């Protein structure tokens, strides 16, 4: 039996990890995903008591709930599910489970990047759709319809330009969320306490340092260099090329950042000690 990957052993470990996730995070996830429905019900109750009639919730509120809920989940899920691994009691028990570091890393990545996100979307759209069907007048249109109208309103407008531009909106959201989740997962496996707050502080610190370095470069000839480069390459007259290069650069950036974060997470798991 391979000491790196064995399908049966990985299946057992992934099932164990999913059960553990459900025990530790299931209720929080459901609550976050059903937030618009819960808020709507509370609002209606107050409205009925105080005004004697039901009132509607504004346009775009559902989408706001979804974005806020997903961002919150991405921030707190890693520390809630895996934060205890830096503690001696839980961490040593977890390290001693007979599965390879690769299997533990793969399972952790799947849970955080796929299972949690898919479960959130599933519960959110189910709850939101149901509320929209039950209370079409006051709850308003479902988030799915809002997203669809957003597509037709803005993205189609971009597509209908002189040069059609296809934006992979779900892909952009997924990769953005994945980066967010992985950063907080790494934070959860490094910091012993206040994992989310410390990760945010590190991100703020890094942004400030990056900002200062970028400003320094731009002030000291960087801006002129870029301007010169753009003129030399004649980008302005070939918008198709600009789009292609932009796409390549963005894809490269995503691969490097996601790959780097996943590699970092793997080595953190492999070298965890108690």
């Amino acid at each position: 039996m391979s000491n790196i990957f064995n399908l049966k052993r990985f299946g057992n470990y992934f099932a164990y990890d999913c059960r553990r996730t459900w025990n530790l995070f299931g209720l929080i996830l459901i609550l976050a995903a059903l937030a618009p429905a819960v808020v709507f019900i509370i609002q209606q109750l107050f409205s009925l008591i105080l005004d004697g009639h039901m009132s509607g919730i504004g346009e775009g509120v559902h989408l706001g709930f979804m974005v806020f809920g997903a961002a919150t989940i991405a921030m707190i899920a890693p520390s809630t599910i895996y934060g205890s691994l830096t503690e001696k009691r839980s961490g040593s028990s977890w390290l001693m489970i007979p599965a390879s570091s690769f299997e533990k890393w793969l399972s952790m990545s799947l849970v955080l990047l796929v299972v949690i996100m898919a479960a959130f979307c599933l519960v959110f759209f189910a709850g939101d759709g149901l509320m929209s069907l039950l209370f079409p007048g006051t709850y308003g249109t479902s988030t799915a319809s809002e997203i669809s109208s957003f597509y037709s309103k803005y993205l189609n407008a971009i597509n209908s330009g002189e040069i059609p531009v296809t934006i992979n909106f779900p892909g952009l959201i997924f990769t953005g969320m994945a980066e967010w989740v992985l950063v907080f997962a790494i934070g959860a496996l490094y910091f012993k306490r206040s994992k989310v707050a410390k990760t945010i502080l590190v991100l703020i610190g890094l942004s400030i340092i990056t900002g200062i370095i970028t400003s320094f470069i731009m002030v000291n000839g960087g801006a002129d260099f870029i301007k010169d480069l753009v003129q030399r390459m004649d980008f302005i007259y070939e918008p198709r090329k600009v789009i292609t290069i932009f796409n390549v650069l963005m894809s490269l950036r995503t691969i490097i950042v996601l790959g780097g974060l996943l590699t970092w997470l793997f080595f953190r798991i492999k070298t965890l000690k108690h």
Partner: protein
Amino acid sequence: MISIDNLAFSYGPKEVLKNISMNLEPGKIYGLLGENGVGKTTLLTLLSGLKKTGAGTIRIDGHDPYKREPSLLEKIYYLPDEVAPSPERATRWAKSKGVFWPGFSMDKFLGIMAEFETDPSQKMTTMSSGQLKKTYISFALACNPEFIFMDEPTNGLDIPSKAQFRQTILRHTSMDAILVISTHQVRDLENIIDPIIILDKREVLLNASLEEISQKLYFDYGNVILPDSLYSEQLPGGFIQVVRNTSGQESKVNIEALFNAVHKNKELVKTLFSHE
């Protein structure tokens, strides 16, 4: 078989273990004794692969435990001094975790839980620390590992449970397993641990079987003070004294007295038990 060769480990500049060498053989329950901070827990975590050795090597059946290979982890169970409750019933927890150890038996787990008079259908988060410890001990033995490392397993157990623990260890540990139990409570384990390993700051003072100890040291329970005793302590109605066994008399080893005698006569004991 566990081979430890010139093992060293430091926490930053603080050296905890240095030049530790020993072999641990199958079918024995080793008692790992030592004062606070001499590195008992550190040694157990190094054996379990939870830490990386500073120098030297540890080989368990020829494998480096720090590599944490699943094929080796399947043969090991490490029970830390403090255990964490899982937010589920003990049976569910044992069932979902037991799949990773090929030798795990749910019947054995339930049997040992019954011997400990602990309800396996209770949620682990509602258990007392003693009940939680008993659940983990039951699980460790139910996994049927070849190597069991227990750190202060009797901490938190009540008096009947300590007796039950001794019986359970003897009854449920397989004949060819290597069990290493670190403890301060030597009386809790007096009748089950053999050989005895006594760690001092950075070195092994003693690693010997009870038979060898009783061959070389005599434990006198009389009421006359012996002039050449290595250690003596007044007990109700007499003394417990440790002297060199020059006449080949047999005596029952008192581990607490042995520990104190070893600590008071480090060099003498090292020479006496030297196998070189």
